[in-house]
């Protein structure tokens, strides 16, 4: 009997030993060899991004040297737009700041009814309200507070700009219709844009068109693009498309004896044309298309009508985030007996005026609505005032930061949820560089260095997109767990069943023995 007990004991030990080997060696080995590689990601920092707050500094540095400088400026310049320039020379205001000069109430620098004059650069002249001579400087300044605040809110970004910049990312309740339209019109922030001018000639048999696009780009578009160079890289090209027609047939209107395109049908115009435009094969930047359409001889003149059935003076329309189309009628330039094809030179100043306005809209240069008494100087040849550029820099940085942080947080969320995704070192590196760029972008923005902020935010976007769209993330995504276990079952089931059964048997025997012992002791 003792021998039998011994034998049973040996069997039990063997079963336990095998179970121990399987648990201690087998399972970790299997786990280790089939594990997916997941590099470390800065999850805590990413989750901080989720509730990112930008304590942006509004540019409202106050200048105290009021009287002297204005006086000297006034002496030399009676005309106020010259004063703007010399004031700019006087104190080189840095990017992202606004200098407000206060001139005495009685000054003749500004016309009578003008309260504030906003210059082409980052300066504004403010006519001070009446004050008592007994006030000291501090009191005078506090008296000016309301006006200064008004100037700053005109020249700098406000709540509306933030809403516009973030409208893609964040759903906000207080959005006016107009700012919403503005933000939808502006093309998404991107490191570069391709601007394409296309001349559509549906009727080369009767019109031989010539446009001096090179000269026009040089003189009208390039100054604006040079000004915008800190925001993005722009490349401009042009093409001529023959036999390209609009997608809708214009209707003949007897009352004006012209063909008309109604505002409702404009939405059908673009798609058929777009097939001919061709995308830029050599880059992946978004494309802004500007089409100049010269209607064929049988369908001229052609006019665009707005919703209230009135003729659009520019004869042009734009499509948000896509570009603009201008209809250019040439039927008055030749008589009916002219020899076909007729040589026609296109007036580029007229065309570029329209396209430049549309380009400004697409790039998100927003309309400012100055309060009464404000005079804004026209931006001049560059098409953009310095303070407008600052606003653009600011809103682009904010938009980029928002985009990058949503990309990174959603990537982190995804990686957290699906444990099957391989995270390679290069992805982890991209993610952490995106996070550091984001942090420095926010820091720069808070310090008011807009150029650096934009650059960092762009780097953040690039890194985050590269991480998000890395193909290595997908390698094991379609190799789900249930299939893996289906393959393992022929091995796992026969191995585990005897172990489990013998363990159960040992346990039940031990229980029985204890029960027996208890019964005996009782």
């Amino acid at each position, binding site marked *: 009997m003792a*021998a*039998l007990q011994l*034998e*049973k004991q*040996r*069997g*039990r030990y*063997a*079963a336990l030993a*095998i179970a121990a080997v399987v648990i201690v060696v087998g399972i970790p080995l299997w786990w280790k060899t089939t594990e997916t590689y997941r590099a470390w990601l800065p999850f805590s920092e990413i989750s901080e991004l989720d509730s990112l707050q930008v304590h942006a500094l509004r540019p409202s540095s106050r200048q105290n040297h009021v009287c002297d400088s204005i006086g000297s400026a006034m002496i030399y310049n009676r005309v106020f737009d010259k004063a703007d320039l010399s004031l700019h020379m006087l104190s080189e205001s840095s990017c992202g700041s606004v200098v407000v000069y206060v001139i005495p109430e009685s000054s003749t620098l500004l016309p009578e009814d003008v309260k504030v004059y906003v210059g082409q650069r980052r300066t504004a002249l403010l006519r001070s309200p009446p004050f008592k001579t007994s006030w000291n400087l501090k009191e005078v300044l506090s008296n000016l507070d309301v006006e200064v605040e008004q100037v700053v809110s005109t020249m700098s970004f406000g709540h509306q700009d933030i809403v516009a910049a973030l409208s893609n990312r964040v759903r906000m309740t207080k959005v006016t219709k107009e700012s919403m339209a503005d933000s939808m019109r502006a093309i998404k922030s991107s490191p570069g844009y391709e601007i*394409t001018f296309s001349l559509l000639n549906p009727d*080369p*048999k009767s019109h*031989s068109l*010539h446009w001096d*696009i*090179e000269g026009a780009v040089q003189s009208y578009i390039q100054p604006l693009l040079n000004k915008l160079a800190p925001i993005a890289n722009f*490349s*401009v*090209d*042009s*093409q*001529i498309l*023959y*036999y390209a027609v609009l997608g809708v047939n214009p209707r003949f209107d007897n009352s004006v004896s012209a063909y008309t395109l109604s505002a409702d049908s404009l939405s059908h115009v673009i798609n058929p044309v777009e097939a*001919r435009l*061709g*995308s*830029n*094969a*050599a*880059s992946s930047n978004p494309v802004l298309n500007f089409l100049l359409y010269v209607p064929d001889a049988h369908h001229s003149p052609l006019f665009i009508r707005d919703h209230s059935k009135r003729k659009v003076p520019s004869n042009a329309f734009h499509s948000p985030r896509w570009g603009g189309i201008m209809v250019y009628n040439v039927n008055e330039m030749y008589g009916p007996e002219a020899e*076909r*094809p007729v*040589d026609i030179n296109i007036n580029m100043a007229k065309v570029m005026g329209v396209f430049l306005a549309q380009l400004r809209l697409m790039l998100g240069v927003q309309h400012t609505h100055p309060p009464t008494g404000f005079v804004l100087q026209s931006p001049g040849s560059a098409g953009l005032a310095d303070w407008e550029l600052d606003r653009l820099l600011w809103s682009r940085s904010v938009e980029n930061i928002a985009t990058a942080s949503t990309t990174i947080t959603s990537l982190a969320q995804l990686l957290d949820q699906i444990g099957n995704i391989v995270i390679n070192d290069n992805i982890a590196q991209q993610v952490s560089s995106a996070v550091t760029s984001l942090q420095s972008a926010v820091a720069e923005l808070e310090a008011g260095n807009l150029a650096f902020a934009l650059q960092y935010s762009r780097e953040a976007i690039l890194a985050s997109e590269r991480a998000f769209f890395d193909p290595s993330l997908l390698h094991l995504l379609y190799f789900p767990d249930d299939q893996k276990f289906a*393959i*393992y*079952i*022929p*091995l796992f*089931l*026969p*191995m585990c069943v*005897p*172990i489990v059964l*013998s363990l159960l048997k040992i346990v039940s025997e031990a229980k029985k023995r204890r029960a027996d012992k208890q019964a005996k002791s009782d």
Partner: protein
Amino acid sequence: FRLSSLIGHISTCPSLIGQCCQRHPGSVDEFQEELVIRPLHSGDIYASFQFRTLWDTDFLQEGQKVSHYRLFPKSLGQVLSKFSVRELHISFTQGFWRTMQWGQPFIPSPPGAELWVWFHDTVSDVDGNWKELTNVLSGIFCASLNFIDLTNTVQPSASFKPLGLGNATDHRFLRYATLPREIVCTENLTPWKKLLPCGSKAGLAVLLKSEKLFHSSFHSQAVHIRPVCQDEQCTSKAWELRQTLNVVFDLYTAGQGKKAFRSSIYLNCGKTGELFELSPATPLLSQAVVLGDRRTYSVFDLTRAETFGQLRSLNLLLRWKGDGGEMLRPLLHAERYVAGFGLQTGEIHTVIYNNHPYRAFPVLLMDSVPWYLQLYIHTLTVTSKSRDNKPSYIHYQPAKDRHRPHLLEMLIQLPPHSMTEVTVQFERALLKWTEYTPDPNHGFYVGSSVVSALVPSMVAMSTNFTQDQPLFSSFVPVKEESSYFVRVYTEPLLVNLPTPDFSMPYNVICLTCTVVAVGYGSFYNLLTRTFQVDEPSLPLAKRLANLIRRIRGVPLLT
């Protein structure tokens, strides 16, 4: 007597030529198009469309970006300047050109897709540019050119010289690849037509109806871009974009109803014009020497009003007169096949024919074989007239598994009126299971080999390229009068590789698991079983007796 009518429809001409020849300050572009119709001796009709856009500009100028396009397609221009391409040749072909029946084509091309590019010598990362370029082109032409990678790209040392300006000889800047499996269909034709300045709306391109074009025995479309001389003095460069489309219509199936119209239609009238009658007759006859053969062409200049007569349409009628004479045999011709049996070894045979009665001439043979056919280069033999023919130049670049294909280039002298056979043995490699194509039992394609040669001409070639030549005769510049350049492509090969059963990995996993489980089970059983001595049980007879005894109540047996 067979009859075919080629009906022309006129819509008024696009007058692009007039427009484009106008001088814009700085640059000039010019567009030309023509259609050559050649009745073949087999009874088929060979139609060759050529569209040429010339632009007097330089894409590769330092510091200055070309960005304003008129006739030249913008998409291609951007590609040229972005990737610093000096010359680009791309062709998509469906069907195989039967040289022996049809003679030489004006512009030869191998079945499937072929791409060869000369990069500018300022490019530092040629392979990177090539990779990106193939991806971009695959987007432009809706083709699977993105499957071109290092495993099917070679750098031929002698076979593909630049056809345009500039004598680049450093073949480090050349890349050549073919995709013999590529299927060409309408989705490739549409983007090709889009590159034409007028699309398919005007000019000869209105004839390019895909349902007709792809219902043919042979279809090949190509784009050739190269720098050429702007004028006779060659002081400045112009870029030439030549789009060609070659079709062979089968008369029996296509019947009639090809529409024609345009700028020039050249109709090959044969040497004497006796083979068939043509109506309406045209006053314009032109002689051209193409591929060593002088022929007379009737020219219909569609920019002139009188071509169309009263009806404002052009009907061409060809009436065959009997069987036709003896066809001029092509002087150079090549074939290829794979020999051997089983799935281990095989042999590639390339046969090159020189049909010239008394002249010997050298040919350059280029073979690019994928790495999974491991060539045994020591078995390479070249025999002509059953004698060993030693190549005077051999350039061989062995393959690297999964990195690089074999490249074999040889200069072989072909004796007159002979057949030269080049054989080389190979062994089939075993691929990894993810490397097989989706349909592995169909076999693996090996691209055509390329035979390039200067073939002695029967008639004097015109070397005066300054005169106004028809497009079809001016593609390859003729350097000397006595010979002309010919490139012949052989058939692609279809080779079977040993193909596994693809459910095998799962079967193997399951079977191995089962075997391991059975072994483990018995081992476990052996280790954990408790042995105990058992008393022998009673024999069956005694147990039966006990059963009866129990019923009877008698003491049991033990």
